[in-house]
């Protein structure tokens, strides 16, 4: 700031009939293309007031951040209060449109990241006024670590979360303070008038008028209405009760009622004192926490006279007539008025309208109701501020991630992992599996060790298969059911020779499965040990008719039979080998230490070079397993998929003892089957995934997975077929194609190839 003080002549287009503007400097900021001079310490609103400008055209001004009547776009950010914006050289301020909303900001890829800062305090005091300072001192005297948040010092509390955690906007970033106690000392807002004409310029709350006058601004012929403090100087006092304001764009006269007669008092400006409304928003936001409210924030709010007309909520532009309308329709509670009209949901979050909503309901015979629920945020934030400290959800990378990327794989996000969708030629990848040998990265499979005295007993109750009949060295496909008998996950159980079990689950299903097992076993009092090895073991699927030939080159140990498993060394890497097939071909899953994955993959690729080895990615895998009719839980299943509906009853042993879901299965098995997962075969092409299955003009299900099968020479799909009028349709159309309803097992239905 520089230059000597001088007076600035009022703008002839002024909407603010001020006669003396006070001392300003030569420094300027931009308002709608005009240079606005200001005095040191001015807010933008005060500087604009010096120039006779009301940034929103009209409406009472509070100069306290409580109302929406000075909202502007400041340096490209909309919904910023001019009264809370320091007047600074170079700032660009635009008024909001009088009709409609301000334009959305331009996409700014260079926008500066807002930092998140996490701190800890014993006590957070919100509000730096007299009571806030007293609370701070009291806590400090007690030896407690205190954080005081004061908007005037650049620390604006905007939310309180369970923890409790108080979030504040500061110049350094968004500060998150975890604390034990919160003191709310946010003071009280002044109630603004809601009468006809209350959107005119020239209306001030008492504190605002005092603030403006203290800055040297002469408000001219000023009329006091209601209870106006001595700090704000009025020329005259309007007698009686406020009825309306009159004027064109700005105030010309105040109309009050005295002894049943209207009294007209001409005015340049009016100071309107209607009482206070404590700023309890942050305290209400923390209503389930132990929050102390002190000072004016703890005062009883004034209940103003019920408005008879006018705009009750200036943020959402809700009129008293609209309140009446919604009230007549039964919205007789504060929360309902808010929901029915959006009053209180705008920029000021009910600071202006809440007192009037209360008096509105009371006037209609309702009990005086408390203010409605207050939720974060208390003030508008930019998207950058909201995103402070956020990161995109992290995706896990298998230990072969770099191998896939080096191979030029198109990576995709699946089940919380980065996975190779295709290496560029899915048909070739598919062919390698069906005709030769291929490697697939299945490291994302959930993997778990379960042991302990009660391990088998737990598994017996957790799964619908008879675990006692799984012999050491053998494994079995299992469904995991919930209490309703719905399929939650699937996988394999392998019994080791030492009595421990090795379990696999779907990619992304391991954490849930681990919790499920832990919780149930604990509730049964079972003594077990669980180790989730999903992140510790890599897994490579060696699959194709030449898979065995390849592995025999890599190990001198015996390979397991179909559904067998063993612990052997492959290419010098210790592996647990499970012979289990998802592709429909001869397959071996090699589970191995995650730091040996690249070594194992490279060795197998080298050893299989003359066999025509080629890796396959997820797109090819999905096609392969679809031909085989292997479901993917979460893709082909729904939240109500029972084994019966999935045609997986073979995986449920009802002759064994109790297991999770058994009761529900017994019950639902007595009901008529209303839908089932089936195969669809189409000629020429496959339907799109998600396509509706039609029986004539009746909805009859939808497609969960589909692809064209070069081996079958037709489109193949899995999908839900629903009964129509109690009968399963015999013929359906899908995606404009006639579809044949067939067994889901399109390829090698006898299962000879994996057993080869």
């Amino acid at each position, binding site marked *: 700031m520089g230059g000597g003080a001088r007076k600035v002549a009022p703008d002839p287009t002024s909407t603010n009939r001020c006669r003396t503007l006070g001392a300003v400097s030569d420094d300027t900021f931009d308002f709608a293309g005009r240079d606005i001079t200001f005095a040191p310490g001015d807010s933008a609103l005060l500087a604009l007031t010096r120039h006779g400008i009301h940034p929103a055209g009209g409406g009472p001004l509070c100069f306290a951040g409580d109302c929406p009547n000075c909202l502007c776009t400041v340096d490209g950010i909309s919904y910023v209060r001019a009264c809370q914006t320091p007047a600074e050289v170079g700032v660009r301020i635009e008024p909001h449109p009088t009709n409609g909303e301000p334009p959305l900001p331009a996409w700014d890829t260079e926008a500066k990241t807002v*930092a*998140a*800062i*996490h*701190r*800890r305090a014993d006590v957070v005091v919100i509000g730096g006024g007299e009571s806030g300072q007293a609370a701070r001192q009291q806590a400090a005297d007690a030896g407690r670590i205190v954080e005081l948040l004061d908007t005037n010092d650049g620390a604006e509390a905007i939310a309180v979360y369970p923890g409790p*955690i108080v979030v504040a906007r500061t110049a350094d*970033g968004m500060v*998150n303070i*975890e604390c034990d106690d919160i003191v709310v000392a946010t003071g009280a807002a002044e109630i603004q008038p809601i009468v006809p004409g209350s959107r005119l310029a020239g209306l001030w709350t008492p504190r605002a008028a005092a603030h403006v006058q203290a800055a040297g601004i002469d408000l001219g012929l000023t009329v006091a209405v209601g209870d106006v403090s001595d700090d704000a100087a009025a020329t005259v006092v309007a007698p009686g009760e406020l009825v309306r304001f009159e004027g064109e764009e700005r105030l010309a006269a105040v109309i009050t009622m005295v002894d049943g007669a209207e009294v007209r008092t001409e005015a340049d400006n009016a100071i309107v004192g209607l009482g206070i409304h404590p700023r309890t928003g942050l305290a209400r936001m923390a209503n389930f926490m132990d929050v102390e409210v002190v000072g004016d924030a703890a005062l009883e709010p004034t209940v103003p006279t019920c408005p008879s007309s006018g705009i009750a909520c200036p943020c959402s532009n809700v009129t008293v007539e609209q309140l009446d309308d919604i009230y007549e329709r039964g919205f007789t509670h504060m929360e309902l008025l808010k929901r029915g009209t959006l009053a209180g949901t705008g920029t000021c979050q009910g600071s202006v309208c809440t007192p009037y909503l209360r008096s509105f309901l009371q006037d209609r015979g309702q009990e005086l109701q408390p203010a409605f629920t207050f939720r974060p945020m208390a003030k508008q934030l930019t998207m950058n501020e909201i995103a402070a*400290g*956020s*990161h995109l*959800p*992290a*995706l*896990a*990378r*298998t*230990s072969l*991630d770099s191998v896939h990327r080096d191979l030029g794989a198109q990576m995709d996000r699946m089940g919380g*992992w980065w996975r190779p969708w295709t290496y560029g030629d899915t048909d070739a990848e598919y062919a390698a599996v069906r005709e030769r040998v291929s490697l697939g990265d299945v490291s994302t499979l959930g993997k778990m*060790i379960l*042991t*302990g*005295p009660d391990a088998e007993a737990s598994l017996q109750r957790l799964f619908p298969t008879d675990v006692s009949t799984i012999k050491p060295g053998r494994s079995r496909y299992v469904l995991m059911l919930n209490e309703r008998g719905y399929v939650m996950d699937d996988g394999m159980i392998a019994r080791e020779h030492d009595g*421990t079990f090795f379990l696999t689950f779907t990619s992304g299903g391991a954490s849930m499965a681990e919790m499920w097992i832990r919780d149930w076993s604990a509730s049964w009092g079972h*003594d077990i*040990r*669980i*180790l989730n*090895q999903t*992140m*510790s*073991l890599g897994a490579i699927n060696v699959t194709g008719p030449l898979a065995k030939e390849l592995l025999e080159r890599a190990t001198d140990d015996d390979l397991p039979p179909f559904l067998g498993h063993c612990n052997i060394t492959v290419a010098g890497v210790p592996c647990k080998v499970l012979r289990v097939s998802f592709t429909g071909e001869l397959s071996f899953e090699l589970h191995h*230490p*995650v*730091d*040996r994955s690249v070594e194992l993959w490279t060795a197998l690729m080298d050893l299989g070079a003359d066999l025509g080895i080629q890796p396959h990615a997820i797109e090819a895998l999905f096609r392969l397993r679809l031909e085989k009719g292997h479901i993917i839980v979460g893709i082909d299943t729904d939240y109500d998929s029972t084994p019966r509906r999935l045609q997986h009853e073979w995986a449920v042993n009802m002759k064994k003892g109790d297991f999770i879901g058994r009761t529900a299965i017994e019950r639902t098995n007595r009901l008529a089957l209303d839908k089932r997962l089936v195969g669809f075969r189409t000629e020429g092409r496959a339907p799109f995934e998600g396509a509706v299955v039609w029986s004539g003009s009746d909805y009859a299900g939808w497609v969960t997975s589909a692809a064209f099968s070069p081996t079958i020479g037709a489109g193949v799909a899995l999908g839900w077929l629903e009964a129509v009028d109690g009968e399963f349709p015999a013929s359906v159309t899908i995606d404009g194609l006639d579809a044949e309803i067939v067994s889901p097992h399109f390829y090698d239905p006898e299962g000879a190839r994996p057993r080869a």
Partner: protein
Amino acid sequence: MPELLHTLPVTRIVTTAAALDGASVPEDALVLRTAPDEALVIHAEAADPDAITIDDAHAIVVADAGWSGGWIPTAAADTFLDGNCSWARPIDRPAFAQGMVAHLPVKLWFEAERTLFVVPHVSAHELTHRLREGGIA
């Protein structure tokens, strides 16, 4: 650019809480007790499950290559954690803590002059990226 995180020589233990209380581990190993019944033993050199004795016939004691970690000087670590850790960190040193850091599951071992960041190997790439974003070279 030097790697921030490296594969740690870890033995993972799952046993009963009582057995873990009485477990014997190599003197130069760092033990992070991640749960009452589970611990990560970070060896000075190679993982060595045989060097650990536990009075539990059913204990799972296995070498585990699935963990990455790196030491970061205290000042830099604290600056990073101030912006990326929303929970209260321990004040005493040494100390162990675990939770979400930069939206990743991280285990922290605090010493006076340095802090060890430990993550599952599958998240090491992401944590490295976020550490660098946070100004840690």
